[in-house]
């Protein structure tokens, strides 16, 4: 294995550049390095002005999402040697406005996430000294969807989100399902009112790339299709049962 590798990295300075461009850097190719290590090497030794987000460097915080050779990846979880001999193209996450270099504006995702009401909603609150009990089976029902680290790789992979900025997107909908399926939650109806819309679940065409790129195996595409089925059954019920029989 060669001991150097070339990185083509997006650079964009909003104060001076009309649009992003690529700059080339040569970094050591160490067997155990991830792409994030290479970026930090650039920042430490080659070009201190390179800006990018990262934090935990172990795949739990969701900060370091970027596009590596056209594919949305967590740079802390992507081995550099997998791209040998290179060059490796590193760009900001797709479908988000670029603030600077590899940093994107994620505020739209945060808006969509809040729209899903990703918290336990109760019609009737329990007194503070009474716990909510949950069996392992009840936990299993929503656990997969709770693994989301809000890294937004699914949004970068989703062409519907790229084409329609109003679309709620994979993670927001999967997280809504996480709470819908939680035995402690009583907010399913409220969330369905918000998400059974064209910019909610019905905008999804099941491309399935969101599930492919998810680093935590959340399977947002599965969550959305299940949600469509639930919404459809609720719709049929609303036709058959008298109105207001919620």
């Amino acid at each position, binding site marked *: 294995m060669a001991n150097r590798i070339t990185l083509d990295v997006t650079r964009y300075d909003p104060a001076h550049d009309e649009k992003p461009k690529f700059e080339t850097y040569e970094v050591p190719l160490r067997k155990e390095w991830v792409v994030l290590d290479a970026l930090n090497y650039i920042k430490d030794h080659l070009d201190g002005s390179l800006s990018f987000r990262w934090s935990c460097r172990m795949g739990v915080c969701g900060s370091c999402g970027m596009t590596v050779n056209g594919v949305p990846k967590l740079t802390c979880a992507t081995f550099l040697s997998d791209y040998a001999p290179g060059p490796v193209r590193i760009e900001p996450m797709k479908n988000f406005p670029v603030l600077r270099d590899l940093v994107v504006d994620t505020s739209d995702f945060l808006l969509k996430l809040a729209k899903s009401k990703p918290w336990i909603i109760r019609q009737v609150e329990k007194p503070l000294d009474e716990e909510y009990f949950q069996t392992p089976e009840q936990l299993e029902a929503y656990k997969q969807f709770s693994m989301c680290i809000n890294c937004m790789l699914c949004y970068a992979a989703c062409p*519907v989100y790229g*084409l*329609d900025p109003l679309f709620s997107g994979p993670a927001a909908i999967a997280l809504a399902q996480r709470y819908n399926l939680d035995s402690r939650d009583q907010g399913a109806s409220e969330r*369905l009112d*918000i998400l059974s819309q064209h910019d909610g679940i019905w905008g999804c*065409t099941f491309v399935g790339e969101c599930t492919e790129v998810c680093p935590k195996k959340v399977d947002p595409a599965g969550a959305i299709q299940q949600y469509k089925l639930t919404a*459809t059954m609720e*719709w049929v019920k609303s036709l058959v049962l008298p109105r207001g029989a919620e």
Partner: protein
Amino acid sequence: MHKRSNEPFLWLLFSAGGVVSAMLLPIHLLLFGLAFPLGWLDGPGYEKLLAIARHPVTRIYLFVLCSLPLFHWAHRFRFTLYDGLQIKHLNELINILCYGGAVVGTVLAAYLLWSIP
């Protein structure tokens, strides 16, 4: 408070059409589109086929076979036009052409099946 979309109705039609298309269209197209014309297998012949077709159960079967897949096409094609061609601003027109086309096909199927002697 938003009113929930009526999209589920269209999704149901799309799903039903998807199942019918998947289960039945392959064998139909294989036999009538390739095997019989190319002589790989002997087709039923006019009299036999007419006898099968004029049976009420067959007429209903053929109606389902012709109608639901068209609604499946309509739904998928509508979204393909939205996403593939990015012409969402024409969505009224797209909806009319797609679902309208499926309705026209359905009516046509009903008429044709009615008119089998």
